[in-house]
């Protein structure tokens, strides 16, 4: 399920199964378009992965903890362990492939 989360909500869910964290900046155009792409990704993979959007401005601890330095940044994790990371606006097929190969 694609949704924006708080730090507490993130920590509650990040260790459960496959998670795709989308770190974004609210002023960032590519971040807005990535949300658009992720809505399409969710239609294909929504049952397999939990997609959580993290606003960098509201979640500075998470940004520092995950060493995010640019926006948007996607981090794919399984049971809390990072599997893969992508920076910038990404293609829908590439995101789906990353999820399916996890």
């Amino acid at each position: 399920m694609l949704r924006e989360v708080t730090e507490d909500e993130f920590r509650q869910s990040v260790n459960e199964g496959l998670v795709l964290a989308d770190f974004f900046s609210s002023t960032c155009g590519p971040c807005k378009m990535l949300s658009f792409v992720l809505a399409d990704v969710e239609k294909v993979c929504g049952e397999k992965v939990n997609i959580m959007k993290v606003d960098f401005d509201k979640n500075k601890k998470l940004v520092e903890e995950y060493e995010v330095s640019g926006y948007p940044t996607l981090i794919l994790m399984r049971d809390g362990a990072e599997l893969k990371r992508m920076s910038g606006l990404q293609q829908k097929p590439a995101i789906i492939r990353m999820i399916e190969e996890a």
Partner: protein
Amino acid sequence: MADYDLIIIGSGPAGMTASIYAARANLSVLMLDKLAPGGQIINTNEIQNYTGMGTINGAELAIQMFQHTQELQVAFDYKTVREVKVEDGLKTVFCEEDDAVYTAYAVILCTGTRPRMLGVEHETRYAGNGISWCAICDGAACRGKDVVVVGGGNSAVEESIYLAEIVKSLTIVTMFDLTADPIACDKLRGMENVKIYPYQDVLDFYGEKKLGGIHFKSTETGEENRVACDQVFEYIGLTPTTECFKDLGILNEMGYVKVDAQMATEIPGIFGAGDCVTKNLRQVITACADGAIAAQSAARYVQGMK
């Protein structure tokens, strides 16, 4: 029999407008894009010169344009076009993803441009990790930090004005002097936390795990400087995204698609629109105009083919 009447490659303002006009001309249309709708406008925080829109965020305009195409049920897919071939009037579009192949009677090339890179040492190492080409993406995270902008044209100066209001210090490193609109240049020069180094060649970037700074040399005096910084933004121009069309023989020496006033190339049934074509003024509104003209031309061509 082709899969579609018309394939539009690229879904920026030109491509999306072309798709609307083509759909309204009762053509079957497929629009392809390797990333997402919008093209360059998604990197623009405020668009203030698109008639009727006042001031609008680029990504929001892109989403509104895309929704308009979907009201007309334009087919859209995420695909990277590798090549276009023409045989007996039929156009075949080859894509990288799943080796997908589509055919059409006509094609409109709307692939736009992408930011140019310096091509100096360590640039790719820090790309996305200290070096950015998008101030509205990464600028907000630079609040209170030391930032460098490379470039002195309109984009560089406009984004620098935006950045100077949030960062601790802003250093401009540019090949010539500032070449943007004089009013914008004067405003930037008057900002207290801005220092400008004109007539410089960037030599390399340095740092450890993260970017530490930028190294450059004066083309006038030979003096070298190193400026420590947390983030660099490059705004040094654009290059056309037309490599996949190089075998069609329709590009000029700079890589732009050569078109006439009807947006037609020398190959019957292949048209171009938007930033990727030869033109003087690259704006959202002129891209849309190109798309409309190209679609009308394509519609006349397809009707003649059927």
